[in-house]
């Protein structure tokens, strides 16, 4: 591995999607940690101090918005970039995510090139 290994948290209640993203991100040399609800996403973020968080919006136990709110208010994770990945198509939601500090907002099904590009640029910063 030539690059430094990055830790990415993928949180989505669609476990099939989490598994797929994990396989692909691991193939790119990243370390992936997984969560399946909002509360778990925050806990896993606290434990692993990831370099990037990918969050679904609608999840059990608070969902993605509650999770980002806690992540951004925790000293140890406040600087971690967050990208949202949701099947909702809603301008207000996009704006809300931006205000909560997200650096990206992708709608499922997403353009793979753009999504991977956003991940790389978030990891680079």
């Amino acid at each position, binding site marked *: 591995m030539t690059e430094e290994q990055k830790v990415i948290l993928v949180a989505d209640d*669609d476990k*099939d*999607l989490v598994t*797929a*993203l994990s*396989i*692909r991100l691991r*193939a790119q040399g990243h370390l992936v940690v997984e969560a399946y609800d909002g509360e778990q996403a925050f806990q896993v973020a606290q434990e692993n101090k990831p370099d990037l968080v990918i969050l679904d919006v*609608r999840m059990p136990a608070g969902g993605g918005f509650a999770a980002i709110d806690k992540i951004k208010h925790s000293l140890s994770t406040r600087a971690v970039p967050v990208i949202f*990945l*949701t*099947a*909702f*198509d*809603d*301008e207000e939601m996009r704006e809300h995510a931006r205000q909560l500090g997200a650096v990206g907002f992708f*709608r*499922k*099904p*997403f353009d*793979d090139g753009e999504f991977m590009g956003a991940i790389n640029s978030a990891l680079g910063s």
Partner: protein
Amino acid sequence: MKAYRIVYLGSDSDFLSSLESSLQQVGWPILREPGDADGTRRALTFNPDLVLWDCDNDQPGEGFPLEMLRGAGFTTQPVMSVVRRDDPRSTINSLAGGAADYIAKPLSEMPVPRLLAALNSGRRQLRIDWFGRVVDESNNQVKGMLANLSDPAYVVKPDYQILWMNRAAEEIFGEGQRGGTCHHVFYERTEPCEACAKSEGMARWRAALKNGKTYRFVSVLARNGKGEIERVVAGTDITPDEEVQKIHKTFVANVSHDLRTPLAAIDQYVSILNDGLAGELTDEQKAYIDIIQRSSFRLHNLVENLIDANKILSGEFKLRMEVVKIEDVLGLVLESLKAQAADRGLEIQTQVAEALPPVYVDRARIAQVIANIAGNSIKFTEQGMIQIRAGFMPRDDGKVMVSVEDTGIGIPREDLGKIFELFYRVENDQVYVEEGAGLGLSISREIIRTHGGTLWAESMEGAGSAFHFTLPVHSGERQDAAGAQGL
């Protein structure tokens, strides 16, 4: 005075020469064509502002052919009938059939004022009669009684000064508001509302009023008994619908969410397999994965189209406007269109006029329109080519016109007026088309309409089709209206 372009569809040479000499005095060009399909097609390329239809063209028992003319591409122009002075039956038939007005022949007076009135009134003339009734002048039908409506109605001058309110409006806004301006008195705004300011004819909007109810308003420009233009506004209480709409909106949001979620997973696993992350694939496996990917893409398009159609029906359709060059919009879709065309052995040619000013549009939506109509062209063309051209609209440099022309199977005349309807599909024995729910064109027309443009089609069965749309060029003031534009 602007030189209006007039088309006369008919074969009465005496009438034509007297009309020509009248129009020469004001410098208006006129084109004469017979009232058949070829003549109509040629007339369309003349790009007229007004169409004169000679009722001598009609077979006995045939009604005024307004729908046919609209379907042939005269989508917005006022259509006037030309009738014999001694033939009241044709006069009445044509007015009942939607003619904006009629001209009697032989001409006994200068026809220009009458043509001007029709040009200014657009397709339909509404007026308020002495009894406060709304009368559609094209067929003299009473549309309703403003005074007695239980919902608010009012009449304002073109400068928005209130002339008259019905009792329901007075109950909401109070009496004695005459003379104030409507946007100020009714909506507490300093500037006229966008819906009216932007529209040249009919405007629609929704508003929540002081009484806690929500209304859908429609306003039309109408001519009063003295020939002065007034804006007539009538509201419909839609408060009970709001709750239903909220439920409907949530339902659609959830359904589309749940349809998209598995599509994302399918795409990801296709990528995993394609990238060889689950082992090397045989050629046969690769071919099957291509099919999965194509099917997923089609399902994706269908879901997005259904969501768009729903937004249109519920008035939730929003645009993200920006100043952009039309060639950049074209660039978003050209590569994939060329690939689609190449698969069918077809060529796509593009031509963009030099020094074309930018347009103020939602680039993704306009790209969607181009992809849709050019995609249709590719689908329905067996051999030949597809041409995409962008230039100024002939004789109107305030508009950019984009045309997609093909050498395909064409559209039957009886279908031409219907292809823009939701869920309409042309039945065709020659070509079996597996995709499509009949949504693309109606969505496209709505997208163009919300941009202040027009989308229309012309076609000859067996020879090809041409779809054209116009967009207003970007001008400074337009930027003030930036932001999401609802319907």
